[in-house]
């Protein structure tokens, strides 16, 4: 509302200033205008007082709008963007830990009886990582109701899942088959409840990240428009004074003009740089992380499917079909890309993606051998080829693939953080700077006009 009432006055100032001086034939309408003006602002001193008021108001408005806007965007970058970024990472870590737990529990079951220490430790690390990530996400108040609902479901089902896995483990140690039934139930809880909830959570927090990023990278149109208006007013006032007093420069007004231009440049450039860095944090950071995480999860799912096909023992066509689907998603139907295409990724990521694609191909051909062995009735050999510790076992290959993707995710997460830090850095001090410049503008303008005004007294 303040702006709306300001504008007509500015227009009045412009009209008052220009008309009488530049065009003599237009004196008649100008005289009418002058007569309409309030008596208080009649004559040069009156107009100068009016100019002072307008410049002070405009300058203050620009300063407040600019500083507040910068503060808001800086808060969004420091808060929402950085926080959502961390939450997205945590949500994705949660999903990964859960699917790895599923794959590891199935592998441990396949190895029979007392599972290898390494698999047990890996399972425990997964559960600990999942719980830690869940704490981060729920502590971060994962946004909207959808995220909170997903967190509640995961928090409720995770202990159920681990309880079932431990029951399965105890029965397996006793050598009785009901352990397998508990493991299947656990895997069902994982696939039908935990993983879908984790997926939902991830979508909720990454949606928030995009939103926060959009808001933080917005251009401060309002403040800049005010600033341009202020500049225009300064120019007009200075031209008026030049004509009235034959003095080319008024130090106060020149200082005010320089302050206004600097503030505008600072505001505009910092906003553009921030938006650029935020976009980079998406393109070089979170977008790559999301794609890599999806690839990693597809690989883990394929790994769990492979184990569960063997666990189901001839009754696992559904798992085998799911394996094929996951492998298609991971490496493409012709095993030449899928989620592992280089795309716009940077050098380090491309190298990791190429290595991962090679591993995916190796894995797929090793997988076909596992299926061949199993279909030929060489079950024990199939299990060894799948969960053995040899370099050629699908377990080893899948681990190498996972490490490549994990490395690339870390790299791109660091990119994300760097760009967000950069975005925050480009806004740093801009609020105080713009505020001070606006103060300088106001003081300069007021002092400058005051000196002229004093000459009339």
């Amino acid at each position, binding site marked *: 509302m303040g702006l709306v009432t300001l504008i007509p006055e500015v227009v009045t100032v412009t009209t008052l200033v220009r008309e009488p001086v530049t065009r003599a034939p237009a004196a008649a309408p100008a005289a009418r205008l002058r007569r309409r003006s309030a008596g208080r602002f009649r004559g040069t001193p009156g107009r100068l007082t009016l100019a002072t008021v307008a410049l002070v108001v405009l300058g203050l408005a620009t300063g407040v709008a600019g500083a507040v806007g910068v503060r808001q965007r800086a808060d969004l970058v420091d808060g929402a963007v950085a926080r959502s970024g961390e939450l997205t990472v945590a949500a994705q870590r949660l999903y990964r830990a859960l699917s790895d737990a599923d794959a590891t529990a199935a592998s441990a079951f396949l190895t029979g009886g007392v599972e290898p220490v390494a698999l047990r430790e890996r399972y425990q690390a997964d559960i600990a990582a999942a719980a830690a990530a869940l704490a981060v996400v729920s502590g971060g108040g994962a946004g909207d*109701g959808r995220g909170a*609902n997903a967190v*509640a479901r995961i928090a409720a089902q995770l202990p159920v899942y681990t309880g079932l896995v431990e029951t399965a483990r105890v029965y397996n140690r006793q050598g*009785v*088959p009901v*352990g*397998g039934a508990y493991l299947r139930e656990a895997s069902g809880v994982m696939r039908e*409840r935990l993983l879908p909830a984790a997926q939902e959570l991830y979508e909720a927090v990454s949606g928030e990240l995009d939103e926060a990023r959009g808001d933080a990278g917005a251009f401060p149109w309002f403040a800049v428009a005010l600033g341009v208006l202020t500049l225009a007013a300064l120019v007009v006032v200075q031209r008026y004074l030049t004509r009235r007093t034959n003095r080319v420069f008024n130090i106060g007004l020149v200082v005010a003009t320089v302050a206004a231009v600097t503030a505008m440049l600072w505001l505009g450039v910092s906003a553009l740089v921030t938006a650029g860095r935020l976009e980079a944090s998406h393109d070089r950071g979170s977008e790559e992380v999301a794609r890599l995480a999806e690839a990693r999860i597809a690989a883990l799912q394929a790994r769990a499917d492979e184990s569960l096909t063997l666990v189901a023992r001839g*009754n696992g066509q559904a798992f085998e079909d799911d394996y094929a689907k996951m492998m298609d998603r991971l490496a493409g139907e012709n095993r030449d890309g899928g989620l592992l295409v280089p795309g716009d990724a940077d050098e380090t990521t491309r190298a990791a993606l190429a290595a991962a694609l090679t591993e995916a191909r190796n894995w797929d051909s090793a997988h076909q051998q596992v299926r061949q062995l199993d279909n030929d*009735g060489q079950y024990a050999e199939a299990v060894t080829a799948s969960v053995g510790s040899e370099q050629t076992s699908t377990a080893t290959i899948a681990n190498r693939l996972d490490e490549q993707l994990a490395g690339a995710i870390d790299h791109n997460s660091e990119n994300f953080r760097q760009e967000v830090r950069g975005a925050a850095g480009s806004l740093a001090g801009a609020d105080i700077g713009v505020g001070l410049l606006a103060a300088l503008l106001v003081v300069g303008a007021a002092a400058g006009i005051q000196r002229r005004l004093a000459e009339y007294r």
Partner: protein
Amino acid sequence: MRARTAAVALLSALVLAGCGSSTTPPPGPDPAEPARPVGVQDPAVLPTGSAAPAGSCNARASYRPTGALPAPGQMPSGSAMARIQRAGRLVVGVDQNNFRFGYRDPKTGNLVGFEIDLARELARAIFGSPDKVLFRAITTADREDAIREGRVDIVIRSMTMNCDRWERVNFSTEYFSAGQAIMVARDSPITGIKDLAGKKVCAATGSTSIRNIAAKAPDARPVSASDALDCLVLLQQLQVDAVSTDDAILAGFAEQDRGTKILPERFTEEPYGMAMKKESVDLARFVNGVLERLRTDGTWTRLYKAWLSSLGPTPQPPAPQYRD
């Protein structure tokens, strides 16, 4: 006028913002809903009417073996056995969850049990080697489809011989006599089939047991699971009140959980037969010839003692009945 429009816009924006920041989570699945084994139906969808009712045939009677068994590796040309011999292995549909009958030994990962050893004896008769056999774990409901689609040559999986199934598959002669019984928690007030009214009773999907529950305890609430072993899980998790299936299967459950008891009442007869394709009568005669030998040379008794001694004293092998 404009002020009023602005006020309305402002007001609606505030209302909308109020909606957006509502903290009530949207409706989703109840987090406290108990975990269940995959494939559980509660209430159970009961199988539709049978093609041939009980009593319309002698379900125990199979095809009589013709003469002496062919020597291993020399199956008569053109026979179903010759096709299996050419394939290089016998594909057998088995259970991997039925303790003592067919189960995965968690210590070794191998399939072991009474039915597994019977399958190995068949392989020995065809190939001269008990190892030329490929086991495929199949679910109860999948048994007939697996045979019809040729995914397995034969099913040895606690499959009750009855007139309805005889319409679609051939059975061998009986290799084990089971009967349906009830298992409950040790401190359960249920003492027999008469107490099942209003109680949840679990059996495997597609089994004769689930039909029998519906027929003999019409007021019970049947729950079906894709594997009978899942019923033990449900009983342990207090999600059902009783499990009712073959006593042989229940005995395996009781061995795995001392907190349960099998009620003495045995209310059906469930003769187990090996199931094969309807067209392959020659295979049924051959299998019956092998079973004949296992009964007489003491192999059946040896296997029974090795795997099923927990069921009580070793009985005589079930006497074969033939329909010629």
